């Protein structure tokens, strides 16, 4: 791929870097705060390549990647997700512990021009999470376009610590990915790109103050892992794993971050005013069974960054701010982690290459439990409140970042060895290494499946390499409450809507006081879904001011019976 251009490309890079002219100032995503968030997913464009045409992108509210959403633990938050793309989409809240029907997996498809309104109470610990599309077979394309963003949880425990938290000043978001641009500056939809993209910026630089700086690092790449470290070999301190603070900062000079994973790190620039250093990916050190460690010269996986070291961010150190943080804290949290003895059962999963199963999908896919994902096939019923060990045995030649929805887990072992201190905290992605010779690799983690049971909507587990996920390296489970009683009396899920005609709000009157809605959809006369309301609060009616005049059908799925019936109403001119 573009082999002839490589020497020219390298020459240009070297020339520009020597003159120090080629850096672009790091773009920092906007922020949203509060409890009610309007997210408008749009087709748009952005000037990502310095010269020439704009790149067609997807975005949320802005140009590329969405706003960084700040939420507080304990708050109930309402998301108003409007799809203004010319395509269907879903938005998954990666790492969030929430009801499956709010989770934004492949089943919660938002058609064009539809508003989806999930809400939930933040139960997660303070850490950096994210949101991104999860439409089956479309995840790679839609994430490549830039649909997604950071979701940062704050809580009292984190607030009490002396940590940097001035966003964009000493608390800096770094969304790592790579992109391939064609001759017209448009994205190619490929697993590996030729250019490192930090947030929305090629060849990024940023000024940081001479004090302790926190970087919130997300690997949002389609496939590539980043073996991050600094050009002067300095020590940095990992303070979070995916889903919360570690017990204490863990000193590192390199950290290998896989697709979907997040870490927050502290770097001490105190008394370094006027100096500079590069944050780099030391991917030349990666084995060829780790994403980004392969050295393909030809074919669909060939790229300029494979098995190479490359810059993520040029850091220029400037004057410190007022009231700077100047030291790394000794302790962060007193976490109580799950222990193997807590588990009620162990589930045995497998990861394999499909080459041994040619009847399934030819030789090109990777499989979980020897099958490809199907939207209507449920692999596991997990009893509510179960604590389970998931043991993944991989015979794949290649490593895979395994992600599970609903829970944060603790890694028990990777090939029989307890995890490094930096990975001993709450996690939602674990890298399952490729097999060694003929020896399969085995990863065990433990999780508690509490709070949210739903027999209809499943949670996903999958490889977070979007290409593999799209190709079917995914499965699903439901969490079921076996002790719950259900009212299945057909006369008791009757309801009416009023007033009719309705102008700004429509109300629902149930037949019995115990009734509630599992799902409400409002559909126009031509069958276009306008509003999707999972488990809506109905006391104050449903806001319909955004609807145009016309005839509408309200489809209500009863919470107990899960039966769906419809009522028709009119919105007058």
């Amino acid at each position, binding site marked *: 791929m573009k082999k002839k251009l490589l020497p020219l490309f390298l020459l240009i890079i070297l020339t520009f870097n020597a003159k120090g002219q080629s850096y672009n100032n790091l773009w920092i995503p906007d922020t949203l705060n509060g409890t009610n968030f309007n997210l408008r997913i749009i*087709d748009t464009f952005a000037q990502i390549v310095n010269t020439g*045409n*704009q790149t067609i992108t997807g975005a949320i509210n802005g140009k590329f990647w969405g706003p960084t959403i700040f939420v507080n633990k304990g708050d109930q938050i309402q998301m108003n997700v409007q799809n203004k793309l010319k395509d269907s989409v879903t938005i998954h809240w990666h790492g969030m512990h929430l009801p499956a029907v709010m989770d934004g997996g492949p089943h919660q498809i938002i058609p064009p*021009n539809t508003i989806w309104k999930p809400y939930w109470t933040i139960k997660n610990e303070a850490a950096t999470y994210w949101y991104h599309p999860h439409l089956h077979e479309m995840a790679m394309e839609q994430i490549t376009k830039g649909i997604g963003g950071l979701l940062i949880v704050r809580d009292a425990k984190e607030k009490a610590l002396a940590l940097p938290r001035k966003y964009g000043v000493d608390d800096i978001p770094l969304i790592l990915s790579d992109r391939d641009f064609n001759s*017209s500056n*448009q994205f190619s939809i490929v*697993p590996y790109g030729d250019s490192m993209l930090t947030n929305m910026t090629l060849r990024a630089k940023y000024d940081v103050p001479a004090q302790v700086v926190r970087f919130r690092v997300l690997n949002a790449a389609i496939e590539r892992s980043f073996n991050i470290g600094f050009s002067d070999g300095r020590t940095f301190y990992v303070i979070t794993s995916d889903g919360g603070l570690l017990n204490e900062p863990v000193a590192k000079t390199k950290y290998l971050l896989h697709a979907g994973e997040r870490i927050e790190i502290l770097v001490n620039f105190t008394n370094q005013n006027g100096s500079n250093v590069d944050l780099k990916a030391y991917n030349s050190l990666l084995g060829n069974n780790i994403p980004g460690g392969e050295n393909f010269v030809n074919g669909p996986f060939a790229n300029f960054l494979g098995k190479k070291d490359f810059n993520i961010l040029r850091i220029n150190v400037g004057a410190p701010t007022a009231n700077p943080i100047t030291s790394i804290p000794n302790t962060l949290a007193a976490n109580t982690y799950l222990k193997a003895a807590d588990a009620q059962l162990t589930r045995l999963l497998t990861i394999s290459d*499909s080459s041994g199963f040619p009847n399934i999908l030819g030789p*090109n896919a*990777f499989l979980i439990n020897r099958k490809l994902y199907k939207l209507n096939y449920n692999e596991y019923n997990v009893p509510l409140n179960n604590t389970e060990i998931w043991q993944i045995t991989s015979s794949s030649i290649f490593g895979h970042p395994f992600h599970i929805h609903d829970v944060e887990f603790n890694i028990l072992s990777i090939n029989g060895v307890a995890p490094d201190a930096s990975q001993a905290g709450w996690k939602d992605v674990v890298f399952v290494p490729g097999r060694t010779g003929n020896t399969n690799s085995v990863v065990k983690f433990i999780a508690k499946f509490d709070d949210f049971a739903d027999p209809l909507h499943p949670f996903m587990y999958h490889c977070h390499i979007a290409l593999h996920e799209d190709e079917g390296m995914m499965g699903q489970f439901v969490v079921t409450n076996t002790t719950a009683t259900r009212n299945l009396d057909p006369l008791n899920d009757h309801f009416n809507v009023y007033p009719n005609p309705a102008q700004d709000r429509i109300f629902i009157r149930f037949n019995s006081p115990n009734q509630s809605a599992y799902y409400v959809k409002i559909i126009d006369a031509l069958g276009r879904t306008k509003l999707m309301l999972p488990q809506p609060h109905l006391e104050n009616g449903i806001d319909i001011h955004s609807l145009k005049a016309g005839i509408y059908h309200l489809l209500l799925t009863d919470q107990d019976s899960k039966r769906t019936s419809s009522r028709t109403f009119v919105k007058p001119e």
Partner: protein
Amino acid sequence: MSGNMSFTNLIIFPFIFGILFTSRDEPRIIQDFTLKNVNNEMISTATYNDAKGFIVVFICNECPFAKLYSKRLNALSAKYKSLNVPLLAINSMDTLVYEDESFKDMQVKAKSDKFTFPYLHDVNQLVAKNFNAEHTPSAFIIWKEQNQWVLKYKGAIDDNGEHPSLAVPYVANNVDALLKNKPVLLNETLSFGCRIFYR
């Protein structure tokens, strides 16, 4: 990485190249078409007796990248109408899925952007299929040769959406060449923007 795809490529690529090369060799003929203008008049390529060719541009109401081109399309139309190369803009978006692409909203758009050219509604997407249009905005130049419309160019209007002053005007350059009885400078560029989904 996803296993070995080169074997599949070996088999498929010769087929694809075969198709491309055979279709390149023969001129593509576009049939006359008739569509409804935002003024509710039927506009037909067959009734433009003096036309040497047409600039046909697929746009829509809501695509942000297509929206950048309203002024440029007015300028192209103004320049080439008098040279007997009229510009026709066509909206082929699916109006069932995309409410904002309705005929009513096309009328609003034509008025607000002061379109000086016909803005036509390809309600059944047949004209777009005939051109094989993939995105909005995308431009086609058809030219009259032996009483047929021959496709001379397909692709982008120019090469810079946001900064017209920096752009190479592909369509204008090609029409200028054709008006001088010269071959087009480029017969194809990449078009991109919002995808036209076919029902």
